[in-house]
C-alpha cells in the first residue's frame, strides 16, 4: 500500500485548477466542472492510498507550469495540461482517475446522465429479457464439440 500524504495548500490549489481543465463546467449539459467545491472536497477527503501518487503528479505539474496554475491564463493552462497529460505515467493516470471517479459520482452529474444517484443495492435494476428467438438458428446447429 502506498503511503497516505496530505496535500499542501499549493498542491490542493493546483489540483482544483487542473481538475477544471480536465472537466470544465458546461451550461449545455447543466453540469459543474471538476473544480466545483463539492467535488473537490470529495476528492481531497477520499484520496487515501492514492495521495502519494497524486502529490507526485502535482509536483510534476508544478515543474511544468513553473508557477501556480491558477495564476496562468487559460491558454497557458491548456498548454501545461497538454504537456502534463503527454508526460503521463502512473502518477498522472492516478490523478486523472481520482478526478473522474469523484466527478462521476456527484449527484448533479449522475442525474445529468439520466441515472439515479444511488448505490446499486438494494434497489437493483431491471434487465430486459431480450429476444430469445435469436437463438433458433444456433439451436438448429448440429453438435460440434469433440468427443474424446
Amino acid at each position, binding site marked *: *500500500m502506498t503511503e497516505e500524504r496530505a496535500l499542501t495548500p499549493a498542491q490542493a490549489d493546483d489540483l482544483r485548477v487542473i481538475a477544471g*481543465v*480536465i*472537466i*470544465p463546467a*458546461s451550461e*449545455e*449539459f447543466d*453540469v459543474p466542472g471538476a473544480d466545483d467545491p463539492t467535488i473537490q472536497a470529495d476528492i481531497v477527503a*477520499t484520496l*487515501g*492510498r*492514492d495521495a502519494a501518487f497524486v502529490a507526485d503528479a502535482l509536483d510534476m505539474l508544478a515543474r511544468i507550469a513553473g508557477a501556480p496554475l491558477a495564476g496562468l491564463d487559460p491558454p497557458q493552462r*491548456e498548454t501545461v*495540461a497538454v504537456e502534463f*497529460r503527454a508526460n503521463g505515467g502512473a502518477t498522472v*493516470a492516478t490523478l*486523472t*482517475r481520482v478526478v*473522474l*471517479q*469523484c*466527478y*462521476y*459520482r456527484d449527484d448533479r452529474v*449522475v442525474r445529468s*446522465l439520466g*441515472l439515479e*444517484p*444511488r*448505490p*446499486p*443495492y*438494494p*434497489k*437493483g*435494476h*431491471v*434487465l*430486459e*429479457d*431480450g*429476444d*430469445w428467438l*435469436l*437463438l433458433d*438458428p*444456433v*439451436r438448429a*446447429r*448440429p*453438435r*460440434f*464439440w*469433440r*468427443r*474424446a
Partner: protein
Amino acid sequence: MNDPVDVLIIGAGASGAAVAWSLAETKMHILCLEQGGWMNPAMYPSTGRDWEARFFGDFSPSPNIRARPEDYPINDDNSPIKIVNFNGVGGGTVMYTAHFPRLHPSDFRVRSLDGVADDWPIDYDTLAPFFEENDRMMGVSGLAGDPGVPPRNPPMPPLPLGRSGTLLGKAMNRLGWHWWPSDTTVATVDYEGRARCINLGHCTPGCAQGAKASTDITYWPAAQRAGVELRTHCRVREISTDEHGMAAGVVYYGADGVEQFQAAHVVVLACNGVGTPRLLLNSASGRFPNGLANSSGLVGKNLMFHPYAQVYGYVAEPTDSNRAPPTCLWSKEFYETDTSRGFVRGYTFQFGRGVGPIMEAVMSEAKGLLPWGAGHHAEFRRLNGHRLGLSAICEDLPEEHNRVTLDPMLKDSDGIPAPRIDYRIGENTARMMEHGVARAKEVLGAAEATDICVNSPILYGGWHLLGTARMGADPDRSVVNEWGRAHDVKNLFIVDGSLFVTSGGVNPTSTIQALALYIADQMKQRLANLFD
C-alpha cells in the same frame, strides 16, 4: 497445543469448501485454516455510493493494490499478466464474474488429439457426476441444448439476454457463428436460501444480494452444519513432516500473530495455483530440500493463466452497461482445434454487457477516446452506456519456464517468503490471441460498433492460476497422482487449480470444484488404505 485433527484443509475458497463439504459425511474431525475472514455482504461495494471507486482500492482484484491484511504480496513484475485473486472465506469465488463453463472432453486429451502438452490422467466422463453435483451445490443458471458443449442441465433458467445480449446475438447470427447464454452461478430464481438476482450489476467484487454463488454462502454453511471446523485469520507458514516422510501437520500464525502447530493425519492443499506451490516450496526441509512433494522438480512450474484478448467498441443503441451481471453469452465457435487457423487448441468468447460510468470514464480517458476540456461532456455521453465487448479466453499451454518461485526479498506481514512469478505468453497462445482479436473485431463490426479498443492481454487478467502441481500417473512428470495424492507424501493431497495438466479455454472454477469433489470421493472410497 492444538488437538490433532483427521483432515486439515488449507484454504476456504472454491476447492477447499467443496472438499470440506464432501468429506464431512465421513464424520472425521475436519479442520480448515483460512488466512482471511468471513466477508460481510453489507460492506460490499455495491452498497455504497463509492461502489465503482473501490475497485481501485480495497476491492481491487490485485492483492498488491488491494493490500488487505489477509493478502500476501506477489512479485509479478516479470509477467505481462498480473495476478488477481481474493483471500477470505470463499476465496476467489467472492470476486469472480460467476462465468461457469466446464472444460470440454477434448481438453483432457490434448496430447492424443493435438500432439501438444500432455493428456490428463482422468477424463471428462470421470468428472461428469461431480460437475452435476457442483452445479447443484453452487446453483447454476443456464440453458440446456447448447450444441457447442456436452449436455448438461443447469438447475436454474439463464440470465436474461438483455439489450447487450440481443445486440451481440444478432451480430453473431449475421456471421453465422455459435453463441449461447452463459452458464453462470448467479441465481435467477430464489435458490437454496439465496435470493434471486436483482441486477446490482457490480457483482464481481462481491454480491450484496447473495445471488452470486461464493462458497461462503453455498458450501460452507452446509459443511459447518455437518461438523467441519473453519478457523479464520490463520496463515499457514509450512507443512511439517515426520521421520517417515509423511505430513505431520502445519505451522501457522493465528489471528493474534502467535505461531502455532496443528497436527493432522491428512493435509489437503486448496490455496490456488500460486498459494499452493508457495506453501510447498516454503516447506523445504532436510528431508525435502527442494520443497515438499517436489521430487519431480515441477512444483511451481508450468504456470498457466488464460491470456485474455479483450476487444470492445461503442454502438448507437444503449447497452445494459452496469445494470446487469457482467456475464452474458459465450461462444464456442473457435474452441476446438482447427489447424488452418495457425494454432492448435482454441478459446471461448466471453461476452460482456458494459461498464458503469466511472469505469467508462477512466478506461476511455486512458485509451485517448475521452478528451480533456470542452469536448469532454459530449463525448462522454456518446460513450457511456453504449459499450459492447467480448474477450477471447485463450488456452495457455504448459511451459516449464512459466513458474512460481519464492521471492528472495519479498515477504508477507507474517514474514513468510512471498511468491515470485516469471511468465511469458507462448507462441501458440500469442497466435490464438491475434486470431481472437481479429474475430472479435468482426463481431463488433457486425454489431456496427465504432471506436474499437483492444486490451490483449488484459494486464490485470491473471484470474486463473493453474498447473503448478500437476496431476499424472508418472512421478517424474507430475506432482500428484490421478486422484490428487502427492507422489512423495502419501497423506498430502492437492485439490485446487494447481492440478491442471492443461488449461482448456474456459474459466476454470467449475472444473476446479468438480476435481475437488472427485478427489474427496476417491479419498472416501479409499479410507481403509488411503496411505498405501
